[in-house]
């Protein structure tokens, strides 16, 4: 199956065996050797060489190629969550780099397979992407490249309006015709003798009135019944779209859900891969002659620009910290209550559960729970974490605090919902005119205003009727409306629940 040259194929076999011996559990991995153009191509397509045509991949390619040729950046490796797992190696890398990358890839693959956030992702995504490409090409043939492309642009603008937890929850159970206690509204009839009834209350008339009442009752019902976070799904289900457009929108949604878990576990996933490549390389794979090069490249991965948080570094240190704590029994009430610093520093109960613990963590956590559960005050101090803010007066970003609780809170805020705002569909029949009302759940940070307007414009293109967004602009509650031609912004006092 593998198209690797012999020396690399042997290397793969060796590293795979080592990885397995440590208990890593992965899909079969297929490595492919690419030159930098090929690798840049795959990277531009988000890992899938068979993706649908779109200019933004070309833009990405332009960017990657330029930074590569100016020596600013180089992609070492690329791995795809799929069964079998596809991974790409850069042809011109040294052998020691190839080893490092392979070890790294096996850990990623273990993560894909075992982390619960990934459990609902489609493991045949390679095929799905190719199908999407075929469908989109077909639509392009039928409706013109420009038209399809423009619509994809609009869809991509809404790509992040999904609910990453929804694959795990059955939100809307299929509705059974449940008769609620509030009975159907009845037409009031005039009193009459029974033989006169048909004259006093003509049946046609009653029926017509009844129909009207029913309709009104239906309209009064909330739509959607509760605010919906999966804006894309709502639009797919309820927008008046042509079939091909609906299909494009649902493809974009499907791909967004596929990529969701990767964004949810960036720190964990990279940390895990770094932890294992370091372990495999230093304990098993490296030859003496390679050690300096390895150390150089490894530190390149973990280093980074001063002051910036590097997910690789944060992740791997946290895993190591957890491993140490569980090896020495530094957890639980007894340890937490201990206030003697000397005692704490010496604390070692020889519990030896470290390895087991990190495997458990990689199974159950996402970045949010990883940080929330395992980022301790000691860790924060040791690794010199801080928060920085934009100082309006000086026009600079400055370090603003080193307090543990604030650092953790900020970090969690950034990770929650991919560090993106929460947007809900509140009303699909707003003003009783079929307008769409979205709500931004304000949590102290406002939206980027010009982007918000442009996004609203794109939602309107999908929804067809005017769209509204309740948000906060300059610390005031505002409603931005776009009716297809003009924007309107007003203060809103009555907050729609």
């Amino acid at each position, binding site marked *: 199956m593998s198209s690797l040259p012999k020396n690399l194929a042997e290397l793969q076999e060796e590293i795979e065996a080592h990885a397995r011996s440590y208990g890593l559990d992965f899909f079969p991995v297929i490595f492919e050797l690419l030159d930098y*153009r090929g690798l*840049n*191509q795959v990277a*531009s397509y988000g890992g899938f*060489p068979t993706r649908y*045509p779109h*200019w*933004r*991949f*070309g*833009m990405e*390619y*332009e960017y990657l190629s330029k930074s590569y040729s100016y020596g600013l950046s180089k992609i070492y490796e690329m791995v795809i969550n799929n069964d079998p797992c596809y991974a790409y190696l850069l042809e011109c890398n040294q052998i020691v780099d190839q080893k490092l990358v392979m070890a790294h890839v096996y850990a990623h693959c273990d993560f894909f397979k075992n982390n619960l956030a990934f459990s609902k992702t489609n493991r045949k995504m390679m095929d799905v992407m190719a199908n999407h490409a075929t469908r989109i090409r077909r639509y392009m043939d039928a409706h013109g490249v420009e038209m399809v*492309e423009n619509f994809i*642009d609009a869809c*991509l*603008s*809404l*790509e*992040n309006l999904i609910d990453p937890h929804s694959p795990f929850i059955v939100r809307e159970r299929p509705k059974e015709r449940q008769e609620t206690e509030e009975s159907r509204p009845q037409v009031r009839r005039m009193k009459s003798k029974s033989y006169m009834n048909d004259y006093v209350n003509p049946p046609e008339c009653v029926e017509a009135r009844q129909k009207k009442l029913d309709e009104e009752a239906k309209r009064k019902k909330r739509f959607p019944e509760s605010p919906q976070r999966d804006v894309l799904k709502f639009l797919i289900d309820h927008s008046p779209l042509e079939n091909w457009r609906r299909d494009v929108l649902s493809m974009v949604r499907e791909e967004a859900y596929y990529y969701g878990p990767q964004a949810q576990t960036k720190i964990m996933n990279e940390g895990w891969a770094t932890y294992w490549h370091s372990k495999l390389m230093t304990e098993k794979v490296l030859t003496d002659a390679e050690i300096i090069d390895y150390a150089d490249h490894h530190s390149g991965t973990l280093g980074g*620009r*001063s*002051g*910036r*948080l*590097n997910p690789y570094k944060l992740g791997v240190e946290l895993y190591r910290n957890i491993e140490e704590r569980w090896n020495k029994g530094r957890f639980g009430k007894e340890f937490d209550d201990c206030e003697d610093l000397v005692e704490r520093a010496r604390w070692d109960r020889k519990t030896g559960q470290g390895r087991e613990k990190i495997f458990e963590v990689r199974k159950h956590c996402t970045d949010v729970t990883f940080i929330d559960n395992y980022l301790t005050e000691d860790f924060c101090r040791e*690794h*010199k*974490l*801080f*928060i*920085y803010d*934009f100082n*309006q007066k*000086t*026009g*600079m*970003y*400055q*370090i*603003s605090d*080193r307090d543990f609780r604030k650092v953790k809170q*900020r*970090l969690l805020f950034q990770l929650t919902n991919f560090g*993106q*705002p929460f*947007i809900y569909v509140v009303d699909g029949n707003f003003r009783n005119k079929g307008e769409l009302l979205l709500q*931004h759940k304000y949590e*102290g*940070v*406002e*939206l*980027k*205003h*010009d*982007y918000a*307007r*442009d*996004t609203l414009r*794109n939602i309107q293109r999908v929804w067809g009727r005017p769209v509204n967004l309740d948000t906060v602009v300059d610390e005031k509650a505002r409603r931005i409306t776009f009716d297809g031609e003009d924007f309107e912004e007003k203060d809103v006092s009555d907050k729609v629940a």
Partner: protein
Amino acid sequence: MILRIEQDHNRFKQIIRGRIKKELKKYISSGELIGRRGKDFISIPLPQIRIPQFIYGPKQTGGVGQGEGAIGTVLGAGEVESGKQEAGNQPGEHLLEVDISLDELAEMLGEELELPEIKPKGRKNILSNKDRYTGISRYGPETLRHFKRTYKETLKRSISTGTYRPEYPILIPIRADKRFRSWKSAAMPQANAVIIYMMDVSGSMGEEQKEIVRIESFWIDTWLRHHYKGVEIRYIIHDAEAREVDRDTFYHTRESGGTVISAAYKLCSKIVDLEYPADEWNIYCLHFSDGDNWSQGDTEECVTILKGQVLPRVNLFCYGQVESPYGTGQFLVDLKEAYGEDERVALSKIENKEGIYQSIKDFLGRGR
């Protein structure tokens, strides 16, 4: 190997081109591009193209970092851009620098201004010989030895003479086996052009007027270079006298003397006479002034020189009158009277930077 991404890459480039074209009018009158010109390419700054989404405004978010530093420490400039003009420059937002070739820019200019292609004049296509290494010869220097051909010849010879042994396949070429790359001369048609810029540098031409000339000449250069292989450019400045200068001096000299335009025309005609035989060169003369001439008599002389010596030789004579608060603008009127119908003469009045657009159209719109 052609990558699939090429298609998307091209599409992206096409979108970029579209953007540039849309903004071209702005670029034409702003002069922003002049300093960004390399040898064959020009780099054009464009706002980053991004697909809008609901995201947080950057100012309020801040972030989490790692490292040394007390509270209040400013983070390194390389990492987060500091606001230069106003607080609010965001990290990560940068301009897209797009390199496009001058040829392409000229094409865009042509499309935007609807300029006709220039047809080089009749016999002015001279032939130049160009050598290309496409042939094979039996003699030549070792550096040009054609390995594959030589090998084949040696192989042929050794098999035919029966000295070839498959188990020991070593071949030694002798002199007769050797083949060398050799050139063939091809005659390539070549059209040469010379542009002669003349400018009035008398006191009444201010900085603003010169800026206009500079921008306009940039675009005219671009357009003419697109059409001719070899383009030479000469610069003449004049007040009461005329002299030839280099490019830098041309744009930066300011004299205070009066204006005698005929002096420049005389010099121009002399240069053409001596160096640019009209049957070998496509000649373009452009003159910029604020339209103030010393005397009516001199204007008449100008008309005579143009008619007798300049016009018969040139492809095009352009006169651009840059509006200035001091000039009377009489010269344009006089020229118009004399040559209103002559298609070798293009006259244009440039009131301000916005006028450059129309003026380029006036000058180059004749396809000469």
